[in-house]
Each structure stands twice: as structure tokens, then as C-alpha cells.
């Protein structure tokens, strides 16, 4: 009897455990955030490096014929949003303790990773802001952090979706808006901001994850008394100089440096009112995450006048160069240059065009591309390149040592629509001419040269924002897609197409991979649907 009772009790416990809400135990040790993703995906880029490289090998070239859909989660309860007729998942999902977190503007879902069923949903009613996209949440212990279009940092209970606290950090009436995923580093929730319609300065804020108290602010343009003001005509121009911080940065725990890409300068296309390099817009900046103090910067587009919005991920990796181990950071910048820097001090190794361009007359002694003034937008129109890439994630493979980026080659006519001495806002506009070619490139970060290229056949011009995102794996897979609804897997070393599957929409956010109950998954959003792919049994 005693024995039987004991067995009954054990069984009852097991049944209770399986019936309990599967999300009721989500908790992550802050020291585990940003570690190599295997059974979880804890930051926007999976870890802090920005590599988007999965060490998992279960899904491999030899078994892709068995790769199939395990479940989908379709957003059906949110209709048209302001300026967005249908929901589009532009986030990179996070995964902790078997619970996936996805977002669109104003909404967060927690989803059971085993089944794809909803655990909870959080809805926000915004008062302004631009609903162009939402890149995902951050997580710390049992708290999920979410940014709203009108610039509220919301802390949610990861297990219930209940709001814990909220904090407003920017004024939507000044056209600041938020799409970013917060980046959590130890006891810092680091929040970037967007919005370049009204000539406001960009900034980064760091908040206490427990209380929401502001820890520090770093401004993208220099304040009174800063020597960098000499790169602006005056303090007012700097105070209205842009440099938004809307894409998450990367982080080196050993150096304790945060690498953040800063966006375009304001006024956007009309640069005549702001002669100078316009620091620290259009840069990669290295900051101390505990104080927000600038350690070094590298300006990728000095005096930008083409909305080159330098927001692609600075990818961190270590390599041996000329016999010496080096800590490097590389970026396929939207201005068409591929940049590799020493991430200890910001000194450059490689600065080289990766798309055809002719707007630069050379490099400064620091390696910064020097723009040719004649290529600035003009009243009669000026021909220059379109953005060579955009926010969708690039990737690095530790197996091949290559950086992968979906790029666009092509030209546009840039018009100056405000030729006054005091331009404001965008002050200009652009219109594409010719075919805009989408090209997947595998670039050697030590030379800047493409090792292989895949030109996507297409009748239509490449869309103005370039996707999909990219994931690489240790089994030599490169997962991405075209703009004709195909998810595509290439061999990372040679660029051969190994597998493809047509979806209901283009892959539209970040692609992640993880092991759950012994099976490797590839998970991503495409339009309003989240897809979970894994190896299917042969007899299915």
C-alpha cells in the first residue's frame, strides 16, 4: 500500500506538471543571457556577438529532404494597424524555458514552443508613433521588456504577461518612435530610439531592470563643451543632428564594451546647413555599458546626405591576423562599404565597397570613406547608390569565417527639395532608376572581397528594405530567403542552393535555431505567420 501510494503520488505530480501552464516556469539567470544559443535564444542576435551562428548540427545538408513544418502560429486577432494593413512579424523571437516571445507593434505574444499555441498576449494602446515594425523583446530573470511605438519601456511578467511597470523615455510628438528590441546586459536594459522626421538627436538610455530607473543616457551627437562639436557648424545643428539608435548593438563581455550602430544624420538629404563630419551619427560607437561613456568611434559615413542610416549589426568575432590573435568587429554598412575594425581600439583593417559605387574619393587616414560633394542630392537630381542593405540581420559563420549579407546593387536619383540655408526634416527625396539587383554575398572580413555571390533572379525591383535575415549553422547551412516567398537554405561555404520551401509570405524577421526535446528547430516569421520547421520522420 505504501509503495502503491508512493507511485500514485509520483504519477499525480507528473500529471500535474504536464497540465500546468507550460510557461509558468520561465526564468533566466542574468549570467546566462547572451550565451551561445542552443536550448534558448536570449537576445535579439541569440548571443551578444551578432553572429547569428548556431552551433547545432542536427539539421544538416544530408537530411534537408526531411525538413518540414512542425507547426505554425498565425496572428489572427490583430487587424490593420495605422499605416500597416496587415500584421508583419519583423521581430527576432526569443526562446527561454520552452516559451517563445514574438512581437508586432503594440503587441507581444508568449507561445508554447512545443505546440505553437498561445500562452498569453499583451496589448498596448499607443498614442502616436510610427508602427513600421517591432524587432522583439529583451528578457531578464522573469521579466520581459517591450518597447512601444510611442516610446514606453514596458516590463512584463514573463510567465503571465502582466505589466509590472512602464517608463516613457522619448516624446512621440517630436517624431521619436520605437521599433527596437531592448538589449539586456547584466543589470542594464539598453534602449534605442528611432525617428528622423523632425531633426531630433538620437540617444541610448540604460534602465535598471528591477525598477525602471534611468541609469545613464548617451547622446548620438555632442553636447555643449564636447570637442566633437567641431564636426558641426554650431551647437544647435548638433542638438538637431539625428543619429538614431533603432537597431540593437552587440557586446564584448571581456572588454566590457558595447558596440552600437548609429543612424543617419539630420536634416537627412539636405546637408548644406550642417557642414562637417557630424559626429557621432553614421558611426559604430564603443561604449561602456555601465556608464554610457564613449570609448572609441568609427564614422562609416562622414557627413551623410543619402540616408545611409548606419544601423546594420556590428558583428564581433576573433581571428588570427598576421600571426596575431585579434578581436574584430565587422559591418556590411548601408553606405555600400564593408568595414572590419579592431574592436579594442576602433582602428580599421578593411574598408572596401561591396556594391558598385562611385561617390567616395578615397579614405581618410582613419579609414573613413570621404564623400564626393558633387554626389550630394541636388535640385536637378544627383545619381548615387541606393542603400546597399538594411536592418535585416546579416550573419557570420565560425566554420567558414565569412560574413553573409543580403545586399542591393543599383542607383537612384536624389533630389534636394529644400535648398534653403536652413533646411529641416528630410529636405530631399530619392527615386530608384534601373533594375535594383538583390545579391546574397559571402564576404571575407579580412579582405572585404566576396568569396561567393548569389544574384536572386527577379523581374521586379528589389524592395526598398532588403531582407530576409540570415542564420548560419555549424552544419554549413545558411538559412535566408528571397522576396518571392521562398525560404532558402544554401551551403555556407559555396553558396549552393540545398533546399527551398514556398511560404505564404516573405521571411520578414529574424531566423533562430534551437534544440527542444531533442529536436533542432528553425523558427522564423513570414508576414503574419510564425513557422517552426524541424526534421520530420521518414515515414510521414
Amino acid at each position, binding site marked *: 500500500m505504501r509503495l502503491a501510494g508512493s507511485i500514485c503520488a509520483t504519477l499525480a505530480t507528473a500529471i500535474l506538471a504536464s497540465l500546468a501552464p507550460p510557461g509558468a516556469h520561465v526564468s533566466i539567470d542574468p549570467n546566462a543571457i547572451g550565451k551561445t544559443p542552443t536550448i534558448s535564444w536570449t537576445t535579439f542576435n541569440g548571443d551578444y556577438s551578432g553572429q547569428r551562428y548556431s552551433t547545432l548540427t542536427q539539421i544538416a545538408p544530408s537530411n534537408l529532404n526531411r525538413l518540414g513544418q512542425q507547426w505554425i502560429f498565425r496572428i489572427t486577432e490583430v487587424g490593420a494597424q*495605422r*499605416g500597416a*494593413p*496587415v*500584421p*508583419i512579424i519583423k521581430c527576432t523571437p526569443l526562446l527561454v524555458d520552452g516559451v517563445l516571445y514574438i512581437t508586432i507593434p503594440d503587441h507581444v505574444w508568449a507561445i508554447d514552443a512545443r505546440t505553437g499555441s498561445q500562452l498569453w498576449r499583451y496589448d498596448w494602446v499607443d498614442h*502616436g*508613433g*510610427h508602427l*513600421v*515594425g517591432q524587432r522583439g523583446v529583451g528578457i531578464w530573470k522573469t521579466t520581459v521588456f517591450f518597447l512601444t511605438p510611442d516610446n514606453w519601456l514596458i516590463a512584463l511578467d514573463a510567465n503571465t504577461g502582466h505589466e509590472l511597470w512602464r517608463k516613457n523615455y522619448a516624446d512621440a*510628438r*517630436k*517624431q521619436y*518612435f520605437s521599433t527596437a528590441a531592448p538589449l539586456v546586459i547584466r543589470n542594464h536594459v539598453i534602449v534605442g530610439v528611432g525617428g528622423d*522626421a523632425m*531633426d*531630433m538627436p538620437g540617444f541610448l538610455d540604460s534602465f535598471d531592470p528591477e525598477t525602471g530607473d534611468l541609469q545613464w543616457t548617451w547622446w548620438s551627437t555632442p553636447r555643449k563643451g564636447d570637442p566633437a562639436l567641431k564636426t558641426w557648424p554650431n551647437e*544647435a545643428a548638433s542638438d538637431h543632428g539625428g543619429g538614431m539608435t533603432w537597431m540593437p548593438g552587440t557586446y564584448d563581455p571581456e572588454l566590457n564594451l558595447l558596440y552600437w550602430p548609429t543612424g543617419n544624420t539630420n536634416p537627412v538629404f539636405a546637408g548644406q546647413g550642417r557642414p562637417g563630419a557630424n559626429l557621432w551619427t553614421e558611426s559604430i560607437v564603443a561604449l561602456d555599458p555601465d556608464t554610457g561613456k564613449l570609448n572609441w568611434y568609427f564614422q562609416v559615413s562622414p557627413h551623410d546626405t543619402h*540616408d545611409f542610416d548606419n544601423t546594420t549589426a556590428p558583428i564581433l568575432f576573433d581571428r588570427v591576423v598576421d600571426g596575431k590573435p585579434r578581436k574584430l568587429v565587422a559591418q556590411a554598412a548601408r553606405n555600400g562599404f564593408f568595414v572590419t575594425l579592431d574592436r579594442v581600439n576602433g582602428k580599421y583593417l578593411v574598408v572596401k565597397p561591396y556594391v*558598385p559605387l562611385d561617390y567616395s574619393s578615397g579614405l581618410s587616414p582613419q579609414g573613413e570613406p570621404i564623400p564626393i560633394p*558633387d*554626389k550630394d542630392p*541636388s*535640385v*536637378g*537630381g544627383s*545619381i548615387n547608390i*541606393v*542603400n546597399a542593405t538594411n536592418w535585416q540581420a546579416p550573419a557570420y559563420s565560425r566554420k567558414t569565417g565569412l560574413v553573409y549579407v543580403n545586399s542591393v546593387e543599383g*542607383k*537612384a*536619383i536624389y*533630389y534636394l*527639395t529644400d535648398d534653403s540655408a536652413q533646411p*529641416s*526634416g*528630410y529636405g*530631399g*527625396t*530619392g*527615386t530608384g*532608376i*534601373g*533594375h535594383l539587383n538583390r545579391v546574397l554575398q559571402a564576404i571575407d572580413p579580412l579582405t572585404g572581397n566576396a568569396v561567393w555571390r548569389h544574384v*536572386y*533572379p*527577379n*523581374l521586379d525591383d528589389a524592395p*526598398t528594405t532588403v531582407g530576409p535575415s540570415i542564420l548560419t549553422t555549424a552544419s554549413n547551412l545558411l538559412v535566408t530567403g*528571397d522576396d518571392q*516567398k*521562398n525560404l*532558402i537554405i544554401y551551403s555556407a561555404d559555396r553558396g549552393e542552393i540545398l533546399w*527551398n520551401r*514556398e511560404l*505564404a*509570405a516573405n521571411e520578414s524577421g529574424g531566423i533562430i535555431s534551437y534544440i527542444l526535446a531533442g529536436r533542432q528547430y528553425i523558427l522564423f516569421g513570414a*508576414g*503574419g505567420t510564425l513557422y517552426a520547421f524541424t526534421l520530420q520522420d521518414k515515414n510521414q
Partner: protein
Amino acid sequence: MKYLILFALLAGISATATGALCQEAPTGDQNPAQQPKPYQKMTAEERAASTRAFLGLGAVPDKAAAALGAPLFNANCAVCHGRQARGAMGPSLITSDEVLGDDHGEKLVLYLKDGRPGKGMPSFAAMPDEQLKEIAEFLHLQVEDIANRGAYHVLNILVGNAAKGQGYVEAHCMSCHTTQTFAHIGSRFRSSEQLQKGWIWPPRTGEDSLAITATVKMPTGSTITGHVTQVSDFRITVVDQAGQTYVIERGPGVEVQINDPLAAHQKWIMTLTSEDMHNVTAYLETLK
């Protein structure tokens, strides 16, 4: 091969420059039934309204009131703040908290009545509320003109030298085209800007001679030739002369040869200079 009627049907339907190049278009699942009216096909007012909604720009300025406010602003405020309120002796108002925090004068009117005597701004309490409200709307319209890039207009883009443009056309274009190509081209577009874009990269819509064609060789050895309506790495859709549509999976043994009548333009766009572009546009504009 000559493309004699390259420009014959160009009705100036290409998109006007609207700042859409670098911003994201609000598109989702690629279901045409769910797509809103294409941005290019909107009227100027629709484009401005669409961009306003997309950006979440808030209250719409009252243009009629703003027009009444313009002379009041010029007479009372412009000497310190500039005619467009972008700053002179006094600060710019278009990025000020007071202006951006107001919708239709509900806060600004009170502010203007008080003035800021400590900082040299007089009180405008003597002005009627209605006029202060008109000044507020004028300020909101200045903000709108800056923040709503869907409402931007290009300036007079005819900055080139027509004689040099003629020389360029004679030297670079006549190996493929004839003078017939360019006859009356200046009257075929709604604007100089559309002419400039249209002669460089003519829209293919409704122009069969510009359609991309393909010859697809099937594994059986048969070939299909026609207009391409879709192509990816995995599939090509071709409509032949009889109007028959073929959806072909690009499997083993399928060979695709694509011909683009605009390939020469594509190549040349990559090296075209802005000065040559301006000159040719100035010349073609004279061919009414």
C-alpha cells in the same frame, strides 16, 4: 536591334519622388487583395495623407487657418524667428516643445498671450484669440511641410544645358535609337522629373517592346518563348504569343535564357553622370 517605339507610349506614369526610396513600404503578406492603393498611383493629396498616417504625424493642420496666419506671423514673429519659423535672432519654432506639444492652438494661444518677457518675447495678448489660433496653425503647417515627406515636391529640376544634352544624345543614343524615338518626348510626361526618370528607365507597363522575354528549353527538348511575368530560382512563368501561360518549375534539364530590352540602359545607368542627365533632360524638354 533598334527600339523605335521605346518612348512612344510613355505617358508619364512613373512614380514621383516622394522619399519612399529609403523608407519601408507598408506591405505585408503578398496577397494582392489586401494591398492598399499603390503609392505611385495616389494623388499628391493621397500620398501626403498616406505618409501622414504611416508616420503617425498626429493632428492635421488647418490649411485655411494657416493661410490666414501667414501674414500675421510675418508681421509679428518673422523678424525674430524667420519667415519659415526656422530661427533667426530668436530660436527655431518648428522643433520647439511648445509647438510640437500643441494640436490646434489649445496650448499655443495661451502661451502667445503670455509671451516670454524674461527672454525678450513680448506678450501677444492684444491679438484676438482667432488670430493667435491662425498663427498656431501656420506653425503647424511649417512642421507638416518638414515632417511629412509624402508632401514634398521637387524644385525646378531643369538645370542642364540643352545644347550639350543634344550633343550627348547624338553621341550616345543613336546607335540604338532614331530621332523618331525622341519626337515630342517633352510633351509626353506630366513633369520634368518624370521625363528625367522616364528617359533613363522607361516604365515597362503597357509597353510590349520593353517586356522581359525568355526562352525556356524543357528537358524534352521543346522550347517555350514569351513574356516573363515571374521568375525566381525555382520557377518561371511565361506567357507566349498565343496568350497561353506556362508555369515552369526550374528543375534539372530546364534551361532559361532571359532577354531584357533595357539591358543596355541598365548597364549605362551604373556610369551615367548627373551632369549628362541634367543636360539631356534639358534638351528633351525642348522637344515638345
